[in-house]
């Protein structure tokens, strides 16, 4: 079976470590790197060639939005999923505008991370429970927030 290669980028080491441990419970996932900022993610991008990058938004140095654009530019086949605390529609819409394939709030059950990774590796968009509701409240459909990359 082909494993999905996943890179985790978050400036909080406890979070990356825990996410790694959780995702490692799935045999079909291969965690290729755990990094703490956008610059490092770009540096390790070509070496590890992940299928999916789990990316935090707020990080010291290069933030998640810039990192998303640069990752997609350098590795067009890679899909980016945002893993964030921010549940405001602006963040979600902006992240999707920058090319993210999905948005997962950190406070939803971790099963959704796996679902999002599966969706992204099939080139589908995934918005977790809370983020869908947030976008709906604002009246913006996720599709309208997508970029020309679609």
């Amino acid at each position: 079976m082909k494993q999905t290669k996943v890179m985790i980028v978050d400036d909080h080491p406890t979070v990356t470590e825990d996410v790694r441990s959780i995702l490692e419970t799935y045999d079909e996932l291969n965690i290729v790197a755990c990094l703490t900022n956008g610059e490092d993610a770009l540096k390790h991008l070509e070496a590890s060639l992940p299928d999916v990058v789990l990316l935090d938004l707020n990080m010291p140095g290069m933030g998640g939005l810039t990192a998303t654009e640069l990752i997609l530019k350098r590795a067009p086949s890679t899909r980016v999923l945002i893993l964030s605390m921010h549940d405001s529609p602006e963040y979600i819409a902006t992240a999707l505008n920058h090319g993210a394939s999905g948005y997962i709030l950190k406070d939803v059950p971790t099963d959704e991370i796996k679902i999002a990774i599966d969706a992204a590796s099939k080139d589908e968009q995934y918005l977790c429970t809370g983020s869908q509701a947030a976008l709906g409240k604002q009246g913006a459909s996720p599709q309208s927030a997508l970029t020309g990359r679609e």
Partner: protein
Amino acid sequence: MIYGDEGFYFVYDYDGNNIVSPRQTYLINQNWSVQVDPNGLPITDELIRIARSGAGYHSYMWPKPSTGEPAEMVTYVTGMQNWRWALGTGVFIDDVLLTVANTRTQVETCIARTFVQIAIITFLALFLVFISGYFITVRERRLADARQKALTARIVNTQEEERGRVAHELHDSISQILVGVSYTLDLARRRIGKGDDRAGETLDKGIDGLSGAIQEVRRISRDLRPGMLNDLGLGPSVKTLIDEFFQRTGTQTQFETVVFRNRLDNHRKIALYCVPQEAFTNIERHANANLVTVTLKGTRGGALMEIIDDGQGFTMGGPRSISGLGLRNMQERIEQLGGSLTITSGRHGTKISALVPLSHILSPQSSVNTKK
């Protein structure tokens, strides 16, 4: 023998014959001994009587030389006894009155003019005073307005900064820890489900994470508003600050305090509490001090908080200027309470003194705490 417009000298002999009358020459060489004025008052006889007895004044009606109209005249007459002459001269009262009136008019005109001048000068002076007062007031008002605006802006800025800081603390510290705990528990659930024996260990990690979160909440809450200040008062709260500072930095501290029994209201307590809080932050960051002495005592002026360190000091506004905003806020806060904050800093240390007036004065109870 004549003078002025109407004046003249006259001479009668004691028999009443006129000898000299330069203005009314028709009188000369005639006898006027029974002459009376229009009111029946004897003239010549009376003049002669006065002259015989030496000299004196006589007042009567006499035709004015210029007009011929009778007018009251005051005459001075003197007797020349060897010659039996009465020599005299007189002035018309109306002339005198006229002269006096003229003089009075002149004086009055002068006075009026002087009065007007004084009035004008006074008015100008008052106007100048008013105008300058007005401009000074306007300027002062503008300055005060500007200061008020600056203060408001700073308060708003500080508030914004503070909110930003709290938001950041909540988002960055608390929620990340909680996310960590949530993930850890999630992992524990998975491990329990799979019968993985690392599940217990994972649960322990989650519990550690939760107690970390509790500590963070406690820290943030204390930074925001020390509840201890309400519960235990200023002294113990400052003591705690000092203990924490010692634990954090290892810098030696000395603390001396008195008990202010209900003599400091909450605003004053908080204002005083913020002084060492701010000072410790600055000392920790910049001063490189070996010993910090904190004194809290009652003085005639109120409660005095002094923080003295033996660090390298700083210059206000200089390149090593310590958190100037914090100090200024602290200063304004204390001045609003009617107190004062003075900072002296040199190469061998810094001394910050904050004085806040008490509500009422009691004799302070002293207690000394020293930490070495």
